[in-house]
């Protein structure tokens, strides 16, 4: 993974956790869009997949954080939604987080491309 994408991954997870931890759910969309915009990825499609993973990781970390302990609410919620188990529910949660980050990250990236044009390789390295 190029350094810039790795950086985007880390930034999304850290800022994502902070945003959903202290703000409301859509702050994460804003964070993803802002990261997508500022990172100036040469290949926005790669950024999409990176953000998908980062968003999924963010929600999975959050979900796991609250699943630690002796409560069994995730299993009960999984039953309500017909998802079978808490693990499947965590997977669905991760998909929600992943798609949120990916779509808005890509939106930010393409917005940057439309505004400033596609970055050249040299300029990418300079920024990185």
């Amino acid at each position, binding site marked *: 993974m190029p350094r810039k994408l790795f950086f985007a991954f880390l930034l999304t997870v850290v800022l994502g956790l902070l945003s959903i931890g202290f703000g409301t759910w859509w702050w994460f969309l804003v964070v993803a869009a802002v990261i997508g915009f500022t990172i100036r990825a040469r290949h926005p499609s790669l950024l999409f997949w990176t953000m998908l993973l980062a968003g999924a990781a963010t929600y999975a970390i959050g979900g796991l954080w609250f699943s630690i302990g002796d*409560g069994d609410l995730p299993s009960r919620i999984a039953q309500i939604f017909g998802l079978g188990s808490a693990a499947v529910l965590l997977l*669905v949660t991760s998909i*929600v987080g992943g798609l*949120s980050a990916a779509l808005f990250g890509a*939106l930010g990236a393409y917005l940057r491309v439309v505004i400033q044009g596609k970055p050249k390789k040299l300029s990418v390295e300079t920024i990185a």
Partner: protein
Amino acid sequence: MSNNRPWLKLIVLAVLCTGWFFLMDRGITVGGSDTPPLGSFFNPFEGFYRNNSSDYWNKNLDLPGLRAPVDVYYDERLVPHIYATSDRDLYYTQGYIQAQHRLFQFDIVSRAAEGTLSELLGELTVDIDRERRRIGGGELAAKIDTLWQSNPSAFQAVLSYADGVNAYIDQLSPKDYPIEYKLLNAAPSKWSPRRTALVAVNMAYTLNYANSDIQSTNTRNLLGERSFEFLFPDRDPNEVPVIPPNSPFQSRDTALINASEKAKLGLSELLGSRSSSPKGLEGYKETPEGIGSNNWAIAGPFTSTGKPLLANDPHLGLTLPSIWFESELHAGGLAVHGVSLPGVPGITIGFNEASAWGVTNVGFDVLDWHEIEYTNPSNTRYRTANGRTAEVDYRIEKIKVRGMETISDTVVVTEFGPIVYTDPEDYRYGLAMDWLTLKRPSAEILETFLELNKSKDIRDFLGASYKMAWPAQNIIYANKKGSIALRVSGTIPRNLPDEGKFIKKVGEPEVIGYLDPTENPFAVNPRQSFLASTNQISTDDTYPYDYRGTFEHYRSRRINALIRGQRKSSIETMKQFQMDSYSVFAADLLPILLKDVKRDDLSLTARGQLDLLQEWNFRFEHDALAPVVFEEWAKALRALAWDEFEMTRQTGRLETPEDWRLVQLLKNDPLSPWFDIKKTDKRESASDIITAALITASEEVQDLVNEKEDYAWADYNNAGVQHYMRLPAFSRSNLPVSGRKGTLNAQNGNIGPSWRMVVDLSNKVGAEVVYPGGQSGHPGNPHYDDMVSDWVEGRYHHVELQASETIKDNKQFTHLTFTP
């Protein structure tokens, strides 16, 4: 899509992102149900994951509404022991803590009484709301609230309590809402004394709404007076009344007694005789079966401790979270432990350093139906009780329904009460409800229990009990000094015999008013050295006044026999009594069935099942098949014996005779014409229908066994504890509970012993307790249902009042200090 057209991709992404945002913001419909907004719901820090927290209760210790610091010690079951310096701070903290654990329950219960469930739950609950609005639960609560305001001690308690609840609500942000609100995408609303009154109204609806006037009227119209009297006698000769026979009773109202004597000579035949049969009543619901309770107290000479023992297990709808919340309260000399209804301050059932008390429902019929006689074609005028005509009043009820337009319901109000039911095929037919709870709103119900919390002796008990001006409850009492007492506590209407048994019509004889509280049945330290109530009839026929109601017949006989059979009862035997699954009904009926069944007419399967019953011990044990065979046999037998009672559009809803009457007829009159099956030419006897019933039952049971090889009573009874929103994921079902309706451990589906308590009034007062649930109302918390297994298996938890000096050194408790 071309690489040189990034703006096109941007547009596509913008559209996708907009769609995603709206999807996440609004939720989707899955299988006809709306999901909560997915964005916040799946956000781990905001949605359901956050509710998996097990220590939500020790986060915020700042309570600016307090006047002094309050110490709270939680035990290992999450029972709070609250130590305050004033009553005000005590009830404030109690409100705050109960809201922390049970906020959604507060909301649901008060909404149920008020008729505003649909605002939260949607169209599923519109019928419930419409009925409760017609009854006027909200108006009644408002009247009680007004009455409280003129009663300083009660009002201070409910107001402080409401302030505490609201202090908790004010601290909540949406991410802290209970999971049910997140699922419903709703928010909690502020608490008030009026909403506490609604919780009381809801309990009155549960306990005192039972009546069979409509069914009795239809049945008498179908069968005629003589047959009705034959099949529905007032008293079961075998039953044991609450107040020991031959107890002295106060009787001051000689005029009423004389009127009753006259009525017994024939006047009663006029009652209800002109009422027509209601055919189809819009929105009518049968009173739920199986609500009941046990309480008993045994005096020192017959207990292993030499001091009184007191037991109570109220049988109510079993819910998760439980209808009870356990607490210990200390303030200014008050020290009390027990359970209360979430939403109500104080302790409802429990014990203090000197006394213990418990409650069962009396079961008097305090609800009458009046058939309205309209005097003009447009139904705007009707005949009043004194024969004049009057205009009806109208009350417009607007029922807000989540996701739908508001529904308006016009309630017609008469001097008899609101018209609750109408016949959709006959616009001239309406039944007005005359319910004691509505007619005589009382604020003293709370004061009764707050005074019991502080009671030290019989005088305190009677003082508290006399304040109870509410449909009656059997309040049992015992104290360290060695006294036991039981009083039918509450308002008892003055009645002629059979008055109000049928739908009333204008012009019928009736008596207005209530008995003086000194005339209520009660017993203190009886010669038999114990007192027991199990919703059976209150008195023997030496009681001078007439009353009617729905009474239990078998548990009273069982508990009386068990107590009399013990030389010295101990806490352990009391617990065994509460868990007792022996059926007196089965012990009465089965020997008759076994004697009269024609074995030669039975199939091999039926004979096998018959053999099973011959070995049976009359106990409804959860892992036994014999109780299933018996239950099916009894069910089939009832259907054949009472085949004349088939409900049709012509007959309307009918009442069938009680089981004890069936047993009596089978035993004493096996050739009774009632045993003839109408649709056959043959004249059947008891023996014929007993045999036919077993053949039917054996086939039913065989089908059940074919589906599940180890099918047993637990499968048949399907005992469970249900979440308020009926969500299986938040409920417990198929619990292996022994017992049935009519056994002391009266488990009937989702109805059963909601709180088991045995109090030992020795020098150090203590109790054994358990209830089917857990202290926390949050399904993500381990204390949500941690006592269900204990309750199923009869494991109790020992509790004692803890002095503040000793509890602070006890490492088993978690200490919190709430500060202003």
